């Protein structure tokens, strides 16, 4: 299926790949334009998220998918609405591509009540049940068993759904990889395992963490057939994932797809990138999946000259709106701290949670009502809210911001 067979050491041979002819056939005009828009939205969203992180509007870790957009849009556009998608801690793009509101994804990064996970999850834990985006997960390899369980539920209920499970090359060395592939093959579950091979597990290069670097072959021993695609090419990625989904749905067969890609930014914002050279990054940036697809669409007459630029401007405007929404959105109220730990029925009995601030106070049976009556906002809460609303926030610079600025300067030059 795959037309693109990269050499063993992908990074060194990137120049060969850039010479490759455009591969798979384009979708119809509307779809092609929409794919480009979707990738642009992810790119601009991620860039602004990085900026907001630098301004301390966003906390925690922030893992950006810049450079990997084709793997996201190519895969998600091959799915039906009723299919399940489950992803990793690098999942803003998956949420957006699946149809989550950019406003609410950004609001989640900002820790607001209107965020997709109501400010409980943050960057690594996006979720949108309605869109069947079944979550980003912070534990490397933790999502694979869940994916197989979702596929099991579909199969059990006689439903025609497929689960697409995205993870990285690093996760392929977790025990859950072998355990889950074995079980999925054994039980013939309709699941597509998509390893987004960006060639680094955090800062450890693929050939330094994995003996068999052809990751799509790693399912062979488990009875899971493998396919590979050029993850910098949205059309080829789509074609390969579509075929994998077809096999999962019709043949009741898990499939492992390896998408070769590259992240242009660090592992997270806190990454000085000492494990790779600027030259290597620059080489891969020449294969920018969005620029390449935009150029191809113009070249093949799908879009007019200048149209990609106009679509990009629209993406920037959409993200501006998302930032404004997130910044204006309220933080979760302090009395909601204990919401959603349990599904509480009508009769709440006993102590479900012990609130340390209530020491000395007998909470009785309905502790939630008491919590609301007794506990007001604390000093730490008020300070955090105040800090987030200041315009001059952002005293700490992420360690790779200097790198990002250089990158942007280079881009501006070219």
């Amino acid at each position, binding site marked *: 299926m795959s037309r693109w067979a990269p050499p063993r050491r992908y990074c060194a041979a990137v120049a060969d790949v850039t010479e490759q002819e455009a591969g798979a056939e384009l979708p119809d005009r509307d779809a092609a334009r929409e794919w480009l828009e979707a990738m642009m939205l992810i790119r601009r969203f991620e860039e602004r998220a990085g900026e907001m992180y630098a301004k301390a509007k966003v906390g925690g870790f922030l893992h950006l998918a810049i450079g990997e957009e084709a793997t996201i849009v190519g895969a998600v556009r091959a799915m039906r609405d009723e299919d399940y998608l489950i992803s990793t801690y690098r999942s803003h793009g998956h949420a957006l591509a699946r149809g989550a509101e950019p406003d609410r994804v950004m609001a989640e990064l900002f820790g607001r009540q209107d965020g997709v*996970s109501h400010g409980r999850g943050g960057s690594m834990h996006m979720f949108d049940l309605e869109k069947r985006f079944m979550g980003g*997960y912070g534990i490397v390899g*933790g999502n694979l*068993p*869940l994916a197989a369980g979702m596929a*099991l539920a579909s199969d059990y209920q006689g439903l025609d759904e497929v689960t697409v499970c995205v993870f990285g090359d690093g996760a392929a060395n977790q*025990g859950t990889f072998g355990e889950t592939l074995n*079980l999925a093959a054994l039980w013939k579950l309709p699941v597509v395992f998509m390893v987004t091979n960006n060639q680094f597990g955090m800062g450890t290069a693929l050939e330094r963490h994995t003996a068999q670097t052809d990751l799509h072959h790693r399912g062979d021993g488990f009875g899971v057939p493998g396919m590979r695609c050029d993850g910098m090419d949205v059309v080829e990625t789509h074609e390969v994932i579509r075929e994998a989904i077809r096999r999962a749905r019709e043949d009741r067969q898990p499939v492992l797809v390896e998408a070769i890609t590259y992240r242009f930014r660090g592992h997270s914002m806190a990454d000085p990138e000492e494990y790779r050279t600027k030259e290597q990054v620059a080489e891969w940036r020449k294969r920018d999946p969005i620029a390449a697809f935009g150029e191809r669409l113009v070249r093949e007459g799908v879009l007019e000259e200048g149209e990609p630029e106009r679509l990009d401007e629209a993406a920037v405007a959409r993200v501006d709106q998302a930032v404004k929404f997130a910044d204006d959105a309220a933080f979760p109220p302090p009395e909601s701290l204990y919401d959603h730990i349990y599904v509480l029925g009508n009769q709440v009995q*006993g102590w479900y949670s012990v609130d340390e601030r209530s020491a000395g106070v007998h909470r009785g049976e309905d502790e939630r009502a008491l919590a609301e009556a007794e506990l007001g906002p604390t000093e730490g809460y008020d300070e955090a809210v105040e800090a987030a609303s200041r315009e001059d926030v952002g005293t700490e610079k992420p360690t790779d911001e200097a790198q990002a600025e250089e990158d942007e300067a280079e881009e501006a030059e070219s």
Partner: protein
Amino acid sequence: MAVVRYREALNQALREEMQRDERVFLMGEDIGVFNGAFKVTAGLLEEFGEKRVRDTPISENTIVGMGVGAAMTGLRPVVELMTINFSLLAMDQIVNHMSTIHYMFGGQAKVPMVVRMPQGAGHQLGPTHSHCLEALYLHVPGMLLAVPSTASDAKGLLKAAIRDDNPVVFIEHEYLYGQRGDVPDDDDHVVDFGKAAVRREGSDVTLVGVSRMAVTAQKAADILANEHEVEAEVIDPRTLRPLDLDTILESVRKTNRVVIVEEGWPHGGVGANLAALIQEQAFDHLDAPIARVTGADLPMPYSKPLEQIAYPHEPQIVEAVLATFRDL
């Protein structure tokens, strides 16, 4: 009422809930063809077939994780882990996923599943098959925790666990599997979580016994009454999360003395936690320091005599109770 063994009571609960709800299914190692390592699932494969009684490979973390995924998307899995020590291989899925997902995603996804596992010493299985680790699971918010000590509770709590929309860690006891007890015939014999059972009324001291130790505590209470004229009130919390602290506190206000008995390790144990809660809530009612009788603070030894002194028996409980009456 019928007299049945604890393991049969669990089997009845599984069978009845599977008959009641098509979404309920079982996964675990050797639960089907082998009928379960402790025979809890005996006969269920025959009755319900391979779709609903699924023998799995030895992959604890992934079995639990698949249960989580299936629970998020419409099923009600009951996962059996062969012993609580093996459940440690599934800690990531239990703690980082099963108990966390409802909160982490702002209440969008529910994880209605049960993870069953037996614990306990006494069969000379040494340091990797004998421990009581309910305290590890008590530590984790976001899931419920049951520790049934009678056949009736085993059935009623398991049925409640399967019907609950929260994830439940359901800890059985290897010693108790063979014990008989009265179990209501009623198909809807459901024991609510968060309600302790007062196994024996008494006015002199409150004995709280966890899991098998609820049984041992009752035997100790008989000795205390017969030989020492001490009337102990024995409370079996039955579920540790939610915890029926009210019933325990009510007893403490009456007896003014507490001894907590558990088979697990003392540091960070159920008793340590419960002692903190009791002194926070009923300090003025205590006439003696809260005492604990726990498993020894060590990996369980194999040798029979050593094993016997490494977890609590009646004499230690009696001694601990009498100590609360001595002048300080």
